[in-house]
């Protein structure tokens, strides 16, 4: 009996050890013959390549480590924007798919069926190489909303110029903390005494009033910088001032959002449909208003179904953002696993670091997810 349990484990272990041993031995041998040494010392060496778009200060004289950071931040930036936009779009489309209105229902399902069945890479290419290339040159671009220009070289829009931004930021955080404790207090009050506060309105009030106060007393000042057309040469124009968003980022965000939103819409639909009809009827029969039914009965149960697969989609979006490499948006894969690897030739270290980075992001989120799932799981007796 015992033998029956040990043998398969032993075989598995042997198999793993053999494979890893074989690979390591070969890698060692190959690196010896090519005169490469394994190590991460290259990270502090000067990178000597430029990156088109960076959130932090960067130029060619800085280290590979810094270039890695630039790539990572760019990946996180596009994921962050994508996650926010696809959540909004996903919820709208998911609710629209449940609409009794035939036209809305069908339009939403057409959107879902279309965008989820076309490869993401193709969509990225479409937006970048076909759709955005059809935009006008900077000198011909029309003014949109009195402030922005949509050109072939990207979107140029207003940029905020802050004075004492940190005061404003701190006020914002303090407002959030106050709202958090206020909500806790209001909930306890309601559970104990049945007294209800207009929670949402008060929260919104705190959120708006407290940060705006800093403009009056904190010395915070906000002005806008508008993009202005500037002539470089006879036929070469660019924009000065304002904020430029590169077309790579726009195309990538558009494709990721439109693609991922279809999956989120399906999750939202499944979640809302997953709440039994009896729940709604029971809630209505004890005298809850429709908005209370939605807030207190349907949403808590629907969210339990919606959130786990949706987090999965967020993870997918983050991983899919690596397709950026195909259109030269300087994300982690392009900057580090592309350019940096070409220059240093350290395939094992660099691919290893890149994979480890994504793995860390994924495992952190799935650990958080498991914790959350345990927290919201229905306690059955």
């Amino acid at each position: 009996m015992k033998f029956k349990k040990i043998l398969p484990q032993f075989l598995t272990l042997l198999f793993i050890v053999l494979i890893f041993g074989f690979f390591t031995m070969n890698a060692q041998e190959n690196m010896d013959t090519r005169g490469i040494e394994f190590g991460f010392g290259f990270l502090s060496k000067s990178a000597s390549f430029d990156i088109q778009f960076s959130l932090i200060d960067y130029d060619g004289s800085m280290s590979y480590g810094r270039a890695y950071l630039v790539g990572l931040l760019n990946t996180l930036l596009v994921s962050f924007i994508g996650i926010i936009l696809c959540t909004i779009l996903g919820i709208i489309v998911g609710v629209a798919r449940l609409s009794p209105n035939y036209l809305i229902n069908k339009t939403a399902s057409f959107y879902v069926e279309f965008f989820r069945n076309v490869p993401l890479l193709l969509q990225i290419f479409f937006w970048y190489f076909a759709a955005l290339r059809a935009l006008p040159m900077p000198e011909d671009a029309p003014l949109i909303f009195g402030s922005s220009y949509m050109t072939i070289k990207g979107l140029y829009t207003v940029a905020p110029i802050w004075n004492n931004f940190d005061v404003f930021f701190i006020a914002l955080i303090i407002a959030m903390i106050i709202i958090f404790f206020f909500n806790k207090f209001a909930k306890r009050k309601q559970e104990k005494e049945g007294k209800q506060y207009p929670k949402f309105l008060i929260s919104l009030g705190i959120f708006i009033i407290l940060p705006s106060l800093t403009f009056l007393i904190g010395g915070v000042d906000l002005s806008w910088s508008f993009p202005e057309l500037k002539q470089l040469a006879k036929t070469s124009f660019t924009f000065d001032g304002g904020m430029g968003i590169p077309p790579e980022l726009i195309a990538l965000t558009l494709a990721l959002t439109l693609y991922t939103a279809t999956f989120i819409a399906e999750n939202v639909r499944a979640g809302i449909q997953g709440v039994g009809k009896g729940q709604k009827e029971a809630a209505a029969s004890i005298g809850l208003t429709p908005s209370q039914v939605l807030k207190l009965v349907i949403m808590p149960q629907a969210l339990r179904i919606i959130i786990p697969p949706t987090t999965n989609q967020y993870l997918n979006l983050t991983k899919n953002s690596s397709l950026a490499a195909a259109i030269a948006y300087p994300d982690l894969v392009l900057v580090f696993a592309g350019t940096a690897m070409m220059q240093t030739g350290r395939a094992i270290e660099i691919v290893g670091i890149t994979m480890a980075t994504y793995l860390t992001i994924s495992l952190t989120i799935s650990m958080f997810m498991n914790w959350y799932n345990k927290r919201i799981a229905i306690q059955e007796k």
Partner: protein
Amino acid sequence: MNNVNFLKPNRENLNLFLVFGTLFFALGILDFCLNNFYETNITGFLPGFISFFTPLIFGMIGLHLIRIEFSGIKILDELNKNINTNNFNAALSISIIILIIFGVAPLLNWFILDANFIGDSKEACTGGGACWVYIKVWFNRFIYGMYPNAEQWRVNATFIIVLGFMALGYFFPLRFKKYLTFYYVIFLPIISFLLIYYLISGGEFGLEWVETGAWGGLSLTFIVAFFSLIFCFPIGMMLALGRRSDLAVVKYSSLSFIEFWRGVPLITVLFMSAVMFPMFLPDGTYVDKLIRVIVAITLFEAAYTAEVIRGGLQALPRGQYDAAKSLGMGYWRLHLLVILPQALKLVIPGIANTFLALVKDTPLIFVVGLLELVGMLNLAKTNPKWLGFSMEGYVFAGIIFWIICYSMSKYSQKLELKFKTDR
């Protein structure tokens, strides 16, 4: 004649309301169309802001007037029930109708009316619409890649034979039905591999050798997807069983394998197979690019398949395990005869989604330099004779992928219904 109250449409004056309602609705649509396609604003005398919303306002008035319950006219009742239950719904419906007209008309123009179909060079494309000549000229390349024109019958023959073998499974006599899985999982891959090796790759029997670098286009998409699909399923099944095993070593090695592949993007896996993997092999050994790619995609998707199958295994009630054990079944018989058939049935949608993801992931093989359909498009796009037709190419590929993926998902829905059993 009763009093006519235009705020409250009623049955008594049904015809009157119908006429006025339809009139207003038509006026709204007409206003929008004139505005958009003929650049004449019939409501230009109104202030700009109101003039912009006139189609919506007219349409809403129209829909309001025809919102009559139990009118006795079947079509009207259906219409009201579906798109016109209240003012909010009516506004949404009109916005959607306007959006559809706004979107469909130019698309139709681009796709068909202004498009060019005839000719064989760039000069034939004179209209403002799509240049389908481009697709026609490059069609061969999009399907077969750089595969020599004279040898393309070999690719066709291979696909037809493999399809034939696949269809053969349907005609198995009942007696041999139990070997069906064996046929699909072991026999078919071997046959297909041999066919591809001898017929597409060639080099023997007097056939000219064609290197894998020359393969490409849609046929390469199919080859990569086919083999990855076939191999990732059994591997995923083993991993799923491994992850639920009581044996610690098996369990944790499966777990870390699955979590590793699920945690990294496919593009890095392909990077690994392209630049890192050769370092791990003895000096001088060379594994073909295509094989490396198929192995990488297979392992990657196997991890996803494993998680889907695990979901099915977890959904089965304990009683199934206990009952099978009480009949004296061992581990393998228990799983193969009782657990897996039920679990797999439960996870058909999940498996189909994984397979769809696999098909949609195949374009990523451009990373290692293999050019399937999307890769070929990008190549054709840079051809100096055919600059400026990227839109047509992407739309073409989009339609092809959409057809493949959509029919796959519909087929899986059919399978799901077919195997549905109430427990």
